[in-house]
């Protein structure tokens, strides 16, 4: 046994000597490649990016005939992230262009791995004024100097509501009236009571937790100096609203993305859900494809500037075709025609402001009873206000949602919940915060 022990210690020492298998990555600004030579780009995306790229690839080819794009589809956002993590760590098989979801951008801000496209020769900074401000900040480093990814789509959020249920409860159902009807959270609760009174298996909203959540969906946890900032009147108010909904049985307590939730949305037992605009495509496409004309959207009461989800395009540092990759990103993300074609094809909403002037935004959507939903979302995205995003948000969000569920399910006090949230968030992000503060110095 003693000999075994010695052997183990030796082997561990040996193994840590060969560590890191994660050896240093290639330096910045290598592998620019050239736009004049033929280049084959590898692009990684999740569903339904293949359809999005296919819709605009001809235009790109016309402009850059020598660049070809190989679209590799990962099965989902987490799968893409895991694959990218591995590839970067192992320095092999890294794509030239990759999608990055909002919840994963933090890790790259902290640990690096992506090309800073704010530098020459990319000069992404020139586009700053063309993008929705909050989106731009999400991909900019803390010091405001570096740009690690380029905005693709955003998720301006809204209340999706069932027209028929509001009508049955004696309310008007056209979006203008409903927006007025639901202009404060108190109104929101009041209307909910009437709608729930319609029947046993009818609920006003899917899950009360969505209301506090939407205020903190990858944002607002910290100040710019990474000071925790959730103790404020707004947090207290939305927690109160959620608790009221829960206690009065106005929410269905359905887990999002569960079978029951889909079913509740499809069969008219859930009257509202608070989601990013991309959810419209889901509803229309398959969740409730039969409910044409039954749904409408209005801005979130009191604080319309809310975002849930969205993605970026980025160039990993190890790409060997960075110039071509940048040309592709520029074409996809900073071109009104391309962005609007993608919007029409897969319902991914542009972060690129010039796109909003297209006539497309003033067309009614028959699924939403002819409502000009795209204009509503574009207005939401450009509403007044600001929110703070930091590279600690993803870690904070996990802790926040867990405490939020606890709050609703166990009937905790708001004071207790906020202090629980604070300690849970600090515990979760301790490691990253320390690193970030070092970087900031």
């Amino acid at each position: 046994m003693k000999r075994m022990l010695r052997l183990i210690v030796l082997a561990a020492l040996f193994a840590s000597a060969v560590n890191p298998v994660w050896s240093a990555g290639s330096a910045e600004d290598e592998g620019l490649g050239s736009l004049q030579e033929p280049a084959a780009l590898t692009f990684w995306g999740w569903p339904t990016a293949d359809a999005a790229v296919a819709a605009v690839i001809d235009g790109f080819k016309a402009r850059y005939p020598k660049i070809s794009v190989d679209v590799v589809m990962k099965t989902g956002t987490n799968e893409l992230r895991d694959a990218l993590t591995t590839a970067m760590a192992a320095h092999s098989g890294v794509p030239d262009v990759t999608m990055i979801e909002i919840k994963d951008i933090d890790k790259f801000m902290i640990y690096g791995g992506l090309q800073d496209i704010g530098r020459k020769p990319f000069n992404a900074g020139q586009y700053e004024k063309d993008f929705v401000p909050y989106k731009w900040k999400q991909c900019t480093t803390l010091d405001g100097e570096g740009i690690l990814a380029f905005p693709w789509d955003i998720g301006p959020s809204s209340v999706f509501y069932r027209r028929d249920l509001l009508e049955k409860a004696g309310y008007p159902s056209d979006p203008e009236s409903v927006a007025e009807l639901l202009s404060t959270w108190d109104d929101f609760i009041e209307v909910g009571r009437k709608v729930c009174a319609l029947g046993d298996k009818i609920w006003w909203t899917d899950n009360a937790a969505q209301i506090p959540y939407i205020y903190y969906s990858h944002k607002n946890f910290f100040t710019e100096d990474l000071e925790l900032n959730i103790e404020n009147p707004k947090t207290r108010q939305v927690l109160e609203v959620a608790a009221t909904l829960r206690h009065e049985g106005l929410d269905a307590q359905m887990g999002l993305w569960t079978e029951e939730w889909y079913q509740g949305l499809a069969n008219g037992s859930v009257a509202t859900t608070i989601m990013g605009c991309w959810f419209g495509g889901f509803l229309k496409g398959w969740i409730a494809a039969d409910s044409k004309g039954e749904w409408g959207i209005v801005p979130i009461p009191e604080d319309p500037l809310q975002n849930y989800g969205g993605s970026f395009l980025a160039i990993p540092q190890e790409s060997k075709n960075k110039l071509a990759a940048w040309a592709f990103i520029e074409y996809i993300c900073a071109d009104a025609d391309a962005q609007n074609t993608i919007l029409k094809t897969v319902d991914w909403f542009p972060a690129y402001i010039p796109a909003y002037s297209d006539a497309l935004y003033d067309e009614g959507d028959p699924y939403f009873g002819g409502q000009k939903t795209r204009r509503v979302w574009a207005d939401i995205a450009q509403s007044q206000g600001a929110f703070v995003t930091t590279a600690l948000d993803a870690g904070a969000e996990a802790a926040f949602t867990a405490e939020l569920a606890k709050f609703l399910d166990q009937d905790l006090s708001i004071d207790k919940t906020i202090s629980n949230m604070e300690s849970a968030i600090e515990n979760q992000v301790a490691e990253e915060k320390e690193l970030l503060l070092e970087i900031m110095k």
Partner: protein
Amino acid sequence: MSTTIASGIGKPGRAVIHILLAILGILFVFPFYWMFLQSTHTSLEILKTPPPLFFGRSLVENYLAMMDVIPFWRSFCNSLFVSLTTTAFSLLFCSMGGFAFAMYSFPGKEILFNILLLTMMLPWIVSLIPWFIIMSRLGWIDKLIALIIPGAANAFGIFWMRQYIGGHVPKDLLFAARIDGCPEGLIFFRVFLPLLTPALGALGILNFLNSWNNFFFPMVVLQTKEKFTIPLALRYLNADPYKGMDFGVTMLGASMAVIPILIVFWAASRQFISGLTTGALKE
């Protein structure tokens, strides 16, 4: 079967035991029944109150919907290919190694065997992260080979083969084969391998099933739908937020993943059970 105690509890007592066993049996069968039943209904039917308790008529509809989301037969073939090749390699390497450990003495034998025993005790999750890095270094991410080759190095298999050979095959056979003039390097294949059929069968079943049902490592290493094994395809059916989840369709996928194994198992349950409990009966 011994009935020394049974004879003491009498007929009524035995009847009670049978009833208890039958109730437990029904509880054990119910999830399977429920799975098969739901696979013949649409989601809408399943979510009615009261839910359907007998088989429905939407099997074909569910099948077509499932094929829309996952290439089931492709995954099936992937699983079959991975399980069969892993098992074949593992049986060959483990029986060769087990033979060497049981029949020969050589420097380092003790220590190698001890390392082997030690790693058997370790949880697989320990090696996950570096394992993952090795796979990508080798360029095996999203390739089935990433499951086959490492899966062939089965520490338990070699341990168990050594125990079996040591316990069941007399060492005299080695000397006899030498006297007969069989080349040393071929003795294993000509003389020993044919004697190991029961052990190979048991270990083979164990390996095959572990590989067939394995979820974690495939999940980490396989990334595109075309490469998925059955458990991954099932999980995708459940988790795909772009197509939605459908009870009936998911349960059909689960049924189709389980049925082939169940058929083989019920046909050869004795061999299966001895295969899967292999390690316990020898130590």
